[in-house]
């Protein structure tokens, strides 16, 4: 099939950007969305033109590197699917597809479709961990953890840190991302000691990075490739309240 593409091109962080038109010919329905872009890029490279820059690595929906807004939707139209797992059979001959980067104050564009998501790393650095050094851990079976708790912790831990939640949110809030980590660790016995300080530190860091607040619209949940529910966000509030209480004790 043949497609019309409108792709965001931006030479660098401070350069102005704009949508440019490209034709994608000979696209097979078996291609993934990123393979379709590879084909377009090969055409550009053959002509000695600058390839369209976009991030990807695992191409199987787990590393969180790919990050495209497709026709206004982060990761495109398929629910629970990263853009690297989206396939071209979803489109038909003659379609026009607009491709843009994540847009959020805390995710500045580096080039074309690539953004800087290091703010997420700094949120984790603020407290998204259990403070244990290597060596000296007790036996793995010392504390039994019920299957139900494990399943819930795992549901939250599935976050791939791609940032689609931020890109979809009109406030560019990082609450789903944070909520997932906070919930995972709050549910597990290992996460209890630092439960209060963790949530406070992460929320504080997110504010400092320029992420917005959460107004419960649920756009984040709708685009999350791992379908992490917004109940994880409610958890942040609960944990914060608890943290304040404990702080007062």
């Amino acid at each position: 099939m043949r497609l019309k593409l409108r792709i965001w091109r931006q030479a660098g962080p401070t350069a102005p950007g704009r949508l440019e038109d490209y034709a994608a010919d000979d696209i097979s329905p078996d291609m993934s969305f990123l393979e379709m872009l590879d084909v377009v890029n090969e055409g550009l490279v053959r002509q000695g033109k600058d390839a369209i820059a976009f991030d990807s690595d695992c191409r199987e929906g787990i590393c969180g590197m790919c990050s495209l807004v497709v026709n206004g939707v982060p990761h495109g139209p398929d629910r629970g699917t990263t853009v690297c797992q989206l396939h071209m059979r979803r489109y038909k001959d003659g379609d026009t597809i607009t491709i843009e980067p994540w847009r959020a104050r805390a995710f500045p564009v580096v080039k074309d479709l690539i953004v800087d998501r290091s703010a997420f790393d700094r949120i984790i650095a603020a407290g998204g961990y259990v403070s244990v050094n290597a060596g000296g851990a007790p036996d793995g079976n010392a504390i039994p953890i019920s299957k139900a708790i494990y399943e819930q912790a795992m549901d939250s831990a599935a976050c791939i840190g791609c940032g689609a939640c931020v890109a979809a949110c009109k406030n560019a809030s990082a609450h789903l991302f944070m909520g997932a980590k906070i919930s995972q660790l709050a549910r597990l016995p290992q996460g209890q000691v630092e439960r209060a300080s963790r949530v406070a530190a992460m929320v504080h860091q997110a504010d400092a990075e320029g992420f917005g607040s959460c107004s419960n619209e649920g756009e984040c949940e709708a685009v999350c490739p791992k379908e992490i529910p917004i109940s994880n966000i409610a958890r942040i509030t609960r944990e914060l309240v608890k943290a304040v209480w404990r702080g007062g004790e």
Partner: protein
Amino acid sequence: MPQLDARVPAGPIAGKWDRHKFEMKLVNPANKRKFTLIVVGTGLAGASAASSLGELGYNVLSFCIQDSPRRAHSIAAQGGINAAKNYQNDGDSVYRLFYDTVKGGDYRSREANVYRLAQLSVNIIDQCVAQGVPFARDYGGLLDNRSFGGAQVSRTFYARGQTGQQLLLGAYQSLMRQVHHETVTLFPRREMLDLVVVDGRARGIVVRNLKTGEIERYAADAVILATGGYGTAYYLSTNAVNSNVTAAWRAHKRGAYFANPCYTQIHPTCIPVSGEHQSKLTLMSESLRNDGRVWVPRKVGDRRPPEQIPEDERDYYLERKYPSFGNLVPRDVASRNAKQVCDDGRGVGETGLAVYLDFADAIRRIGIEGIRDKYGNLFQMYQKITDENPYETPMRIYPAIHYTMGGLWVDYNLMSTIPGLHVLGEANFSDHGANRLGASALMQGLADGYFVIPYTIADYLASTPLPKISTDHDAFKQASDAAQRQINALLDVKGTRTIRHFHRALGRILWDDVGMSRTAESLTRALAEIPKLREEFWHDVSVPGAPDNLNQSLEYAGRVADYLDFAELLALDAQHRRESCGGHFREESQTPDGEALRDDEHFSYVAAWEYTGPGQRPELHKEPLVFDEVHPTQRSYK
């Protein structure tokens, strides 16, 4: 021929590591922060090393290609991680894990390293649980296990189908905690382009800042490479697309020997190639072979859809040839047989390069729901990619490159032949011999990073004079100039063909001639074709864009250029090893039943190659393998 000394400590195998730990020198706590250590790579090996060294108080600089350390290729591992916990009370032990690993590696690994790995495996699980890694639990709340190939006990720990992700996030979080404590500084979106060697010791690296294009220099007291495997040399593989051999190869050119490059692992159950556009292959867990039956049509060229092929016109070739193991033969055997039937013209699907993995019998036996419970997510992934419903029509699968056992040679302390350069994880060659067992790579990466390097590097630092050096030193200048020259050379070719064209062409040569089975003839052909392709690359590749900003074409071109060099060593190693072992199958060396036939008399050694200059034949060094514990025998799966 010079022999290599792995510096394995003396004494009985079970006590070697403890004794060695006692005998190694320590760095006084107050002095640790005076040492700067570079860790390249943030996969399981690199992240666990950098965080542990940070915890000890060293000043650590951590580098990776991705925008965040959390995205390293380790994140994609699905199945699980082995550990000799014996929680199932089914007869597992450190000794059994050690034994299985040596045997699984077809008696081509170093016993002392493997034993240590098995010992440390139990600590890994404890460490990860303490970090909050959500391993699967049974109904009593204890850790659950599954079984994996090459073992008769249940010792694989897992977190749904996302074990690598959860282990890596555990290590990443520990790493970020050290960033918070300012013992570790992160350098993401950096690609190591050279190792800096001063007075014979590794003292720094030169990297390209992938955001700005700048060539940057970093000095240190020691360098640790944890840069992963080289599977993408074959173009199509199950590895992440940015995986590369660049860091290891450039260290090799500076004097680090490259060991056993021909030991590559081909995984039998991947989703087949659908066309020229394909950029990577997706693994389907080998657990599927528990219930799926592998078959192809009996007749050559039978193009009927599978449901129209009657039972007696199907060839369940694994069940036919290996009645006792059937569909559960090891990875290498399953892969070779799939290739064989396709080479015979009996492959299925549009390309003829696939075999069926059929669940019809299993569905009849345990019902669609039973199958969905066991493999639901895999079936869904398969359908997403192929648009076929595997509940109704058999899956099509084909082998693909998955893992590389070869890597930079290291001694017992994980130090390469360049003093001060240590190599961890898939990037080294150490523990898996000629074939890695499932769920053992994650174990090795974390053992290296959490529990081996923190001890062995102290010994190096405490026993080596390390005068302060600055990045103005001539060696840094020379290395960064060389990196810049290579970049300019790539941009100056201004040819007509794409980088991907060359990568694909290289992949085809390697897959066809240095792939699942190799012959003297195919290797001679590969060794003639690779230099030709390299010539063409340097005359006709088109690398657009500028050197001084983010330029993915340039990054890719550099990696392919290194693969074009490295591939020759891979083929040469395969040519010199005129025996079959594990993943290395030389057609000339097989048993009467077509199984891999080792030649212990002539090839029971690690082949470590020394770089001798461009266009020069590398020099072979041997580390003889001694088996005091496990007696080498011929594998059989009949």
